[in-house]
């Protein structure tokens, strides 16, 4: 029963945080120099003050930011995220379309990198000091040090330029077949996977090394348990605890930090949508995009906390 109350509490906290986040965005964005009307009119905005004012009224951005926010909130809870100022179309469909695209990158990357990094991390920890561990450590170190916009181009040069296996740009076309989809997604997913793999792998290895030094692991060995059982049944479970937090953070990164990868590969995901929105000073679009991203990130953290509780009996009681 206590668990239930805890979950409800966390959910409320989540919603409160998101609310605070959206208010914060609104307030901050109101400080942006220039607004959507100026962006739309471009060079003409200086010429005709009347046209500018009329456009502002039509777009509804002549109101103070908190009024705009209240309106937005009203519609948002009903699922209507308003219209894009720059594109003059409803936001919700575009947003979720782009979100789906990003998830097409993030989910395969997560699915591949998480189990693989667990395996590598454990392997490196168990064989600490040996050549294979040095190898894994070196590779993961380089992996976290190479930024996405360095790795991406390198992959493009190798796989697209020389080997010509994949296209260098990943613009999605509606109704692409599965093979085409695979070709387009391959390099960006590979980039994301490599970064995640390196990051999580290092954390898993460090956590595992610590756990293997624990008194209860020592005791398990002194009870005569075979090493494999010691590692799997005793060490692994306990070192998963801190790893869960790391994985959650990484999923958040996969959703938020993917903006760079999308730029490198010209991929129409939610990150590039946000960049576009910022350039256009398209407040409703910015609001919606950031909100959805933050929501995904917070949800990932909440799931991590739940998993942490599930794995740690001390917290369950």
């Amino acid at each position, binding site marked *: 029963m206590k668990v239930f109350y805890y979950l409800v509490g966390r959910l409320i906290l989540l919603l409160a945080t998101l609310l605070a986040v959206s208010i*914060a965005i609104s307030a901050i964005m109101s400080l942006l120099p220039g607004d959507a009307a100026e962006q739309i009119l471009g060079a003409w905005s200086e010429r005709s003050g009347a046209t500018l004012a009329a456009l502002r009224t039509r777009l509804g951005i002549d109101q103070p930011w908190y009024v705009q926010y209240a309106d937005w909130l009203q519609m948002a809870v009903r699922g209507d995220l308003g219209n894009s100022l720059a594109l003059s179309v409803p936001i919700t469909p575009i947003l979720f379309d782009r979100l789906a695209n990003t998830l097409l990158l993030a989910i395969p990357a997560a699915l591949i990198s998480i189990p693989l990094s667990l395996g590598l991390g454990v392997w490196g920890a168990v064989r600490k000091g040996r050549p294979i561990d040095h190898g894994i450590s070196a590779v993961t170190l380089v992996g976290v*040090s190479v*930024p996405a916009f360095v790795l991406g181009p*390198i992959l493009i*040069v190798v796989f697209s330029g020389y080997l010509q296996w994949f296209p260098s740009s990943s613009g999605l076309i509606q109704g692409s077949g599965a093979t085409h989809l695979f070709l387009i997604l391959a390099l960006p997913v590979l980039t994301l996977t490599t970064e995640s793999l390196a990051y999580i792998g290092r954390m898993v290895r460090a956590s595992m090394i610590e756990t293997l030094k624990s008194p209860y692991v020592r005791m398990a060995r002194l009870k005569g348990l075979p090493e494999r059982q010691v590692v799997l049944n005793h060490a692994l479970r306990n070192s998963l605890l801190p790893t869960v937090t790391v994985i959650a953070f990484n999923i958040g990164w996969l959703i938020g*930090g993917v903006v*760079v990868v999308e730029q*490198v590969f010209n991929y129409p995901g939610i990150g590039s949508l946000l960049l576009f929105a910022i350039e256009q000073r398209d407040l409703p679009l910015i609001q919606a995009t*950031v909100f959805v991203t*933050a929501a995904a990130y917070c949800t990932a953290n909440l799931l991590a906390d739940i998993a942490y509780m599930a794995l740690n009996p001390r917290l369950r009681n």
Partner: protein
Amino acid sequence: MRIHSLRILRNVPGSLLVGSIVVGIFLLLAAIGHWLAPYDIEQFNMSARLSPPSPEHWLGTDRYGRDMLSRLMAGARETMVIAVGSVALSLVLGLVIGLISGYRGGLVDGALMRTMDIVMAFPSLLLALLVVAVLGGGTLNTILSVGIVFTPKIARVVRSAVLSLRGAAFIEAAILRGESDTHVLFREIFPNIFPPLIVETCIRLSYAVLVSVSLSYLGLGAQPPTPEWGLMIGKEKSLLLSAPWVVLVPAIAITLLILGINMLGDGLREVLVAKKSHD
């Protein structure tokens, strides 16, 4: 892997040594790169544009004929200034918040930590993006934005270090003899939080480089004609297949810098953790 040769360096882990050397080189470049550069970094030289590495231009030239080596060396300062500046900012802010939050506890702690949580509800890059969009691009604004984004992480580390020390007997002894709060915070607690703080600072430094360089890549950080490495890559990414050195030179520099910082951080962690277990 330990270095066994020089007696003084006997117990220094290899990663610490290599990391410090690499970071040291970049710091040196940051300091004197501008003077050492063989060519003027702003000098256009259209006749030599996009030429591959050669005896005149060791690392080739970019689309305006500017010497890549010179821009690389000068760019070290830009990148380092942003990275160090933002980490310094987040250190100062994070220390103040963390110390007060950890020591006072109660409502103050709750309020401060909730605020930190809200800031941490965003992936770092995203938040930095937003802040920089508001403030506008440029070096100073990038420092501000990255500094703000990293403050909560530092605050958390400081706070948890303070919390773990607060129950220590020597702190209670200080309270019992009537020491003021300021004394306890700054003379008793502060000297003891260095180890985790230093390690975290190193981690932040490597992320600071990553985020600021990413921002510049996206066009929201440093602005042309600054020879900032991320900016150089972002502007020239279309040249990747035709004139790869224009992109690869700054790319490799960035990677080496981050690699060096990470190794330094790993080495520091080993040394500082080892000191604890020695007791």
